[in-house]
């Protein structure tokens, strides 16, 4: 069934959230989510960035037909979203929920996102490649995400002829993705490593395991808040499971380092920590307007405070919900004419959104 809207994601932060946001999950004190993405192309067609509208439409039809022919027990019903028909707010919600990318929602006609009802699976049509299968789960669950992505991929490969070379592997638009076409990434929150000046050494160790580090919103993202995406660099010369294992090992290492740094901070600088957390609480209490960067920083500090035992009520659930509710996507996809207005709107609603959600959590705790 094809829809032009996405009711579940079009709200202002109080509606339904993707299931990767819900509940506690393995190592979720540090690892916010795990994501696996596979890139595939339909053989005999130019890649999306070189395709005409007619060519893009033809490929989209092929992929949509194929996806709707398969019926996967583990995935359930799928909803097709015509990106071009979505409102700016709906596109931003898709980006904020990490169900698609900024370039995809800005690319024009014949772009689709096929999502499951839990919003953990998205099949993107005519992103950088004709097909991108993406699975996102809460906490450190890269292997589970891979198994679901692999199942969807196998179903697609049964239905569609894809560009593949026995020596080079799956052929992708970006030469760097050629081979497995696989990106495994984990989103991590590491504020204590920053406060203890151990972040650089940690990234050096991660790099030595062929892991790349990006900002919260992907390549080129400057948004801070101690939230990073760590992903594989190498897409050739190892198997998919080896790659998943490597990123899982990096995430496990990061979690141990961050947990250790939090313990050190609590033992050696409890008063300073209390001051930092209280200062963030005062900033939020008094704010009438809050930039995206400041919003992420305040949220990050309150989250750290909660994990250290301070009364901030920024649980796993609240943290993940408010991160998606930051609407950073709005800032990135708005047209130049609308950008100033949209940023103003988001900045003025942000402090109240945070305060209301935290208040609701506090109320739920007390009940």
């Amino acid at each position: 069934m094809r829809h032009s809207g996405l009711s579940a994601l079009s709200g202002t932060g109080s509606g339904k959230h993707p299931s990767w946001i819900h509940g506690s999950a393995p190592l979720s004190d540090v690892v916010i989510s795990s994501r696996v993405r596979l890139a595939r192309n339909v053989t005999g067609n130019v890649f999306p960035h070189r395709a005409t509208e007619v060519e893009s439409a033809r490929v989209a039809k092929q992929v949509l037909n194929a996806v709707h022919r398969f019926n996967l027990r583990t995935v359930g019903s799928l909803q097709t979203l015509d990106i071009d028909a979505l409102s700016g707010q709906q596109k931003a919600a898709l980006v904020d929920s990490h169900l698609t990318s900024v370039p995809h929602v800005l690319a024009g006609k014949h772009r689709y996102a096929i999502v499951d009802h839990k919003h953990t699976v998205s099949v993107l049509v005519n992103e950088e490649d004709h097909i991108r299968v993406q699975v996102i789960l809460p906490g450190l669950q890269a292997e589970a995400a891979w198994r679901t992505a692999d199942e969807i991929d196998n179903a697609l490969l049964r239905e569609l002829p894809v560009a593949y070379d026995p020596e080079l592997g799956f052929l992708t638009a970006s030469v760097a993705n050629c081979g497995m076409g696989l990106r495994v990434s984990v989103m991590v929150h590491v504020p204590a490593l920053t406060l203890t000046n151990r972040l650089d050494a940690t990234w050096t160790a991660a790099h030595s395991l062929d892991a790349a580090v990006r900002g919260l919103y992907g390549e080129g993202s400057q948004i801070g808040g101690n939230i990073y995406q760590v992903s594989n660099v190498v897409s050739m010369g190892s198997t998919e499971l080896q790659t998943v294992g490597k990123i899982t090992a990096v995430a496990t290492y990061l979690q141990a380092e961050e947990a250790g740094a939090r313990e050190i901070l609590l033992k050696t600088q409890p008063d300073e920590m209390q001051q930092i957390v209280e200062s963030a609480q005062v900033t939020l209490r008094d704010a009438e307007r809050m930039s995206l960067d400041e919003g992420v920083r305040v949220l990050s500090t309150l989250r750290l405070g909660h994990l250290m035992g301070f009364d901030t009520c920024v649980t796993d659930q609240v943290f993940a919900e408010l991160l998606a509710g930051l609407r950073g996507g709005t800032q990135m996809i708005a047209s130049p004419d609308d950008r100033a207005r949209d940023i103003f709107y988001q900045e003025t609603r942000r402090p109240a959104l945070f305060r209301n959600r935290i208040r609701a959590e506090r109320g739920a705790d007390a009940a």
Partner: protein
Amino acid sequence: MLADQPEQLGLFGKFEGLGVDDLALCPSCSTSLAQVYVDGRVGCEQCYVAFRDDIKRALVMIHGTSRHTGKTL
């Protein structure tokens, strides 16, 4: 002009300069090898045939190998 801005050449990192071969076009989608050097993307699967040797060299630089050992069809 491209050779004057080696730091902007995406695929191979620092690149000494472009020769006549780099003006070669993919017979299927007309993407030039120079374009592939610049943004690291090919235009279609036939580019992998047309520019195979250059792409394999790039893959070795990126991944340490140009041989796929993952999932097969």
